[in-house]
């Protein structure tokens, strides 16, 4: 039996949830003010996912590090493994916001994308 308490972060109410996983993998949640809290607890216990945001090295002087993120959330236990992949990545070509930096990173089915343009537009 797993017993876990955590804070629901789906809405600002921030309910203190208490989740118990019974022998048959059934989940009992208390403390939630609405049904979304149950979904949240369910995901957090059986399939926690996180967005990963970090930077990768580039060969450009004007921007030595490019901000990137996973296109959507990846399994939480893969976060440090993906960090290790990104630590050895170097960007050599110009990229725009949303362009793919690494496709299907570590077979998660999720791409890592640029969140800034490498090439500076001319302003002013």
């Amino acid at each position, binding site marked *: 039996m797993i017993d876990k308490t955590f804070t629901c972060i789906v809405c*600002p109410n921030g309910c203190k949830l208490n989740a118990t996983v019974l022998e048959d993998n059934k989940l009992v949640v208390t403390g939630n003010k609405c049904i979304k809290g149950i979904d949240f607890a369910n995901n957090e216990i059986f399939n926690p996912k*996180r967005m990963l945001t*970090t930077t990768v090295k580039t060969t450009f002087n004007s921007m030595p590090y490019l*901000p990137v993120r996973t296109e959507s959330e990846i399994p939480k236990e893969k976060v440090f493994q993906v960090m290790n992949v990104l630590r050895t990545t170097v960007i050599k070509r110009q990229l725009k*916001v949303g362009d793919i930096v690494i496709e299907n990173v570590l077979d998660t089915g999720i791409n890592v994308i640029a*969140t800034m343009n490498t090439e500076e537009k001319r*302003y002013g």
Partner: protein
Amino acid sequence: MKTAIFFWVKKMKYDVTVIGAGPAGLAAAISADKNGAKVLLIEREDKLGGVLKQCIHDGFGLIKYGEKLSGCEYANRSIDELMKRDVSLKLRTFVSKVTKKKDGFNLLLSSSGKLENIETKKIIFATGCRERTPKQVAIHGSRPAGVFTAGLAQYYLNVNGQMPGRKCVILGSGDIGLIMARRLTLEGASVLGVYEAKDSPSGLTRNIYQCLEDFDIPLYLSHTVTRLHGRNRLEGVTISKVDEKMEPINGTEEYVSCDTLIVSVGLIPENELPKTLDVPMSKYTKGAIVNQYYETLVNGIYACGNALHVNDLVDYVSESGEEAGKFAAIRDKSDAETIDVNFTSDFGYVVPQKIVKDSETATFYFRTSRIRENAVVKVYNKDEEIFRKKYLNLKPPEMEKIKVNIEDVSEIRFVMEVSK
């Protein structure tokens, strides 16, 4: 005499000049242009986007775009929009002096050593905020290297790729400190703990959960750093428990060995320029006092974004810029009476602080002064209740927004009822 003529010829005239090109200034410039004004946007740095440039983490734009964007992506959307509009832009430009004239303002701009004068009818201050520094916190000991504000550490790491240190202690539970705790952990540093003098966290619940609990980083409430150790580089800190008055309790000292202290003890609106123009400031927000049109008490001067009050969500920052830009573009001087917005000590602050009696509704932003459960916020016009809303939870880190019908009001008072 030649120079005088030269200056006269060169002097550009604008309807609205926006100072600062973070999300607030970008939104203000776009919106003023949309509303027909001739707009100038001035930024002292060489890139647009303000502090969002270093905010690589996600969680921005949920209200405005219905998506969880990173700060950089959020800024990029506004920048793309700005580029489609007819706004004059001056980067690497600093406003050295503002002088009030009969029908507007004269601005002295300095850009790589060159000076230029321009004229503008309206000014919008969108200069953002700055961090409270370690100097503003009472800590004993010399000042070895290795002590950073959270924002500076964020800049070093995210923009320059430099690690501030390997064994970090974080003082203060503000959002930037929490975000940095996760960021440093992901980059391989060990974050020993977050120490907060207050008895509740300053940062958003989401950040406590995803930045600390995810990585088993402990949060110590009612604790502070009282001494720094180390000569050249920081070697450790003394931690003490504090009492309700946030005074360190003798005998509770504990030594923690670390090479880096990151201080995240709050932000203050940046308002050096408006102060030179005698724009009245609020002692609660540390920003200008404004009416529902984002106009300060000095006619023609507007304020928005974090320069006005420190926001927790960038979506509201853009919203304030959009409103300020619109009203700066379309509003004429109003002869309508202005009344005060009063509130009890249950509120940290309420913005706007003034209401011009010429509109039907007004949007208010407020913060509670402490954690409240099951609170009812009511707005009164004299003795008549004109608004009420029930909140299951009110927390100081989370700003609330309400829209109130203010037709024919003669006094506005915010009250909070808390059921025991």
